């Protein structure tokens, strides 16, 4: 079983987001970078799959040279190979990103490496376009299942569970397939020290993809305007019980 996991380098924005003066980027002077959260689960799942079924795993990212850090992070967790589609750092839109990934997968295929599964996060944490996985599947003429929170591989088939507004649904598709997964699929492990040391020494394969205009072009970023409002303090500790009941009644919840 051969698995390809596509990840994205994103700023770790646990705190307040601030923008660069030209409003083109998040100010990352005081932020670290990470693999987008849904994709951390894709990496973990790929490692588990190879542990269970054998085969090989590869991680791929499109981004600047610095994204090598995220490829090494994935290798520290157990992914064997890494491919960097190296860009000059400007943001690629979903059409351009998908086209570059498709080209890389086709080059791999031509070199005798085909994948049973291509995995993505459901959406990247930063640009959240919700479409790169679907576009890659369409171009490669593969089935695509999105929003996955549990999955099982058996008999050349993938069975997945997705959360819906009213509960859960189960879907299945034959391999090869493209999957986009969500956080909750698993609990990603922490890298071990030997894993980190091993990943440091591994070679990163590089491809320079051709930039193309995908048709969605960022003008500027902006922070949402916070609506002014006042907070009504209802009380402290147990004293607030009756006040809370009054609020519930006012909102017709009781």
């Amino acid at each position, binding site marked *: 079983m051969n698995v390809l996991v596509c990840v994205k380098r994103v700023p770790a*924005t*646990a705190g*307040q*987001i601030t923008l660069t003066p030209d409003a083109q980027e998040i100010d990352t002077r005081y932020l670290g970078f990470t693999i987008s959260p849904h994709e951390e689960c894709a990496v973990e799942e790929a490692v588990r799959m190879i542990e269970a079924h054998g085969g090989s795993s590869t991680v791929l990212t499109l981004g600047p040279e610095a994204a090598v850090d995220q490829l090494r992070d994935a290798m520290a967790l157990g992914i064997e190979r890494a491919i960097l589609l190296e860009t000059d750092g400007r943001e690629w839109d*979903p059409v351009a990103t*998908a086209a570059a990934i498709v080209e890389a997968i086709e080059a791999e295929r031509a070199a005798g490496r085909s994948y049973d599964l291509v995995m993505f996060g459901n959406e990247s*944490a930063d640009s*959240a*376009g*919700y*479409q790169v996985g*679907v*576009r890659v599947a*369409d171009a490669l*003429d593969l*089935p*695509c*299942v*999105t*929003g996955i929170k549990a999955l099982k591989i058996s008999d050349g088939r993938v*069975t997945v569970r*997705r959360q819906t*507004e*009213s509960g859960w*649904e*189960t*879907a*299945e*598709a*034959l391999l090869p397939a493209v999957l986009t997964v*969500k*956080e*909750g699929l698993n609990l990603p492990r922490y890298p071990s020290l030997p894993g980190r040391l091993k990943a440091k020494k591994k070679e990163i394969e590089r491809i320079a993809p051709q930039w193309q205009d*995908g*048709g*969605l*072009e*960022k*003008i*500027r*970023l*902006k922070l*949402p305007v916070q609506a002014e*409002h006042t*907070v009504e*303090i*209802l*009380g*402290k*500790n*147990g004293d*607030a*019980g009756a006040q*809370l*009941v009054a*609020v*519930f009644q006012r*909102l017709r*919840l*009781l």
Partner: protein
Amino acid sequence: MVLAFIEHVDGAPTMLSLEVLTMAGRLARDLGVPLDAVAIGPKGAAASGILTSYQVATLHLADDLRLAEYAPAAWAHTIAELADRVNPKVVIGTASDRGGEVMAHVAARMTLPLAANCTQIAAGDPFIVTRQRWGGSLLEEAHLRGAVKLLTVAPHALTAEASPNRTEVATHSLAPALEDKDFRVRLVPQAGADSGKISLAQARVVIGGGRGVGSAEGFATLEELADLLGGAVGCSRVVTSLGWRPHSDQVGQTGTRIAPDLYIACGISGAIQHMVGCRAAKHILAINTDPNAPIVAQADYAVIGDVQKVLSAVNAEIRRAKSGHERMVTEAPTA
């Protein structure tokens, strides 16, 4: 024409689809073109009743039996084929899980760009869209090009507005030329999939717990309040990471987005990734020991104190109020 892809349950358009129709109607007016809608699956025709209040000229219906079950590629094929034939200026859908998935397939098939999670759309050449990034904690203004503009609307980016002026809705049946490969992803029928519990996404009141709840066992008081109010229990990402609650309970950027009448945030600090999951709540009530916690500043109501003490008191108060009410009801005939 502006073509709106509406999602429906047995012919009742979802709330998010009514929001899309509202956005689509404004766009159609700006562009000076009619608004059409497309509904997929059986009973779609029943939607025409409510669409009379949204200025829809024609409702395109695809009720092929093979489309009864959700099949994203087949649904997208249907929409793309319709778009090829009627040549709309815009195709617009919801940014729900299904809407977003189908519209991504439509975009791939039509080889067009797609702007996901839009909050504002200015028709021009190109369109200028404002779309949510980072789950909505950051916005992007972008140019959207393409012969047909493909968009999804962020949930609750605007309020659905039915018009008092009703119009006649023509219906038109679609017979898409579907291929077997459009059904390569199949839904598997599940017995007993429905837990009977109110889901987070649909609950009128959600009680969310954070680290301040103290432990997995501490959620018992939240569960009790949820039972008393007929709501659902959610949690923050840290609670999921601690293993106190399953990820399916998580409210936030990488969890469920909720839109209840009231969100009761218990012992939750209010990190930006959590707030994007509950920003559509009509009211927020924060219970927190720290009056300076970010959640308190963003809430409509706040109680400063320990979650367990506050909830124990309020649960007791509700039980007392309810038993009082029941006593009154029981005693009424003799009064």
